[in-house]
């Protein structure tokens, strides 16, 4: 069962304008840099993108916003991005803001075959508008629906030809849930290892969730907030 494709362009071949995409990552950490570059090259547009953040002006999903490829962003936090703010205020871009945990859980719900779950976040706020409220054990919850996507695009640390994935540190974030929630899931990895090298106890995303995988290249892995301390 070999799911390896040559590169990002090959992996995203099936992505067409108007589709709904999920893109893994938190801020610029653990984002599928190669696939984003390929989407910019391909020039598909009118996309609905589900991603916790929208990148920065000149990196991550920001690159797709620059090219006006995104019709709608579904995110939890979209600061740090002037072009984004411009498109939003001018009405060029639709935005749906969702609490971060709700976003993660709606992706997971899809991968777990749960059409809807009841969650706490946003009760009594404008996030609750139009949503079903239901009381369990004296507390109100919102009915939240699973997110589907035509393609989920994730970035892993290591992966194998069967699609098994391992993530590194906090670059894991949304990637495992989105990998579960794509009708088709693409994984780009820093290191494509021989099948059998990943220990079966340590795999974060089993290959059944992944359809195409490729060895990424030229990772920039930009840091948004470089905070350090001095030795002594």
């Amino acid at each position: 069962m070999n799911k390896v494709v040559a590169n990002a362009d090959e992996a995203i071949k099936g992505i067409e304008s108007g589709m709904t995409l999920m893109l893994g990552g938190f801020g610029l950490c653990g984002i599928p840099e190669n696939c984003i570059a390929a989407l910019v090259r391909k020039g598909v547009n009118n996309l609905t993108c589900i991603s916790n953040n929208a990148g920065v002006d000149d990196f991550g999903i920001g690159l797709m916003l620059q090219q006006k490829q995104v019709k709608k962003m579904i995110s939890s936090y979209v600061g740090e991005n002037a072009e984004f703010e411009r498109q939003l205020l001018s009405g060029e871009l639709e935005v749906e803001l969702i609490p971060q945990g709700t976003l993660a859980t709606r992706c997971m719900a899809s991968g777990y075959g749960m059409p809807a779950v009841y969650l706490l976040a946003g009760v009594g706020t404008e996030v609750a508008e139009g949503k079903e409220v239901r009381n369990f054990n004296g507390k109100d919850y919102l009915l939240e629906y699973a997110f589907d996507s035509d393609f989920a695009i994730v970035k892993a640390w290591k992966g194998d030809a069967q699609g098994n994935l391992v993530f590194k540190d906090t670059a894991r974030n949304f990637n495992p849930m989105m990998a579960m929630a794509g009708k088709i899931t693409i994984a780009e990895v820093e290191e494509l290892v021989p099948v059998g090298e990943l220990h079966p106890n340590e795999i974060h995303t089993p290959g059944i969730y992944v359809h195409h995988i490729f060895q990424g290249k030229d990772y920039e892995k930009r840091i948004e907030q470089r905070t350090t301390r001095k030795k002594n």
Partner: protein
Amino acid sequence: MGLNKEQIAQRIAKELQNGFYVNLGIGIPTLVANYIPDGVNVVLQSENGLLGMGPFPFEGEEDADLINAGKQTITTLPGSAFFDSAMSFGMIRAGKVDLTVLGAMEVADNGDIANWKIPGKMVKGMGGAMDLVAAAKNIIVAMQHTNPKGESKLLSKCTLPLTGIKCVKKVVTDLGVFDIIADGFRCLEHAPGVTLDEIKAKTAGRLVIDDDVKEMVF
């Protein structure tokens, strides 16, 4: 005068109890980590997927794959664990995090909080704040008592879109420490050099001042 940001953080750090799992928001709350009292062991949760957040890395040792929820480069500690965003907010919603400290634009005297949106002006989004305030057992707000225009941020009703309802348990500002009780903001301590009259003047919401309000001790 009132407290500076470091002092607000220092005062909040005294609320930490041994064995607590704690989520610290961006801004003043992050500084709380610098003042954890001796003998108090807490584990810091970062909602992007880490338990056991350590200090900033030494220069040259930053790792782009290891950041906190404020996107700052950080380190791990012995016993740290990584997990995905669904599990991270799962443990928050399930009440496993003992204390959440976060900033706010406004707090109401019934515990409502607003900190994610200024209509027409600011649209950054709520991030994980709505999940945290909806679920945490104990929420402390760290903020300035008034906004840059000098208007009170302790209100009878929030004017900005809400982040969560009836959830804030305690507020620590540059002027004092306040529990939120049925009667409103109950002043427990005032900052050194700050009078109760100043607190009264700068608090728009219902304020309860007991007879035994103490001056804050560090």
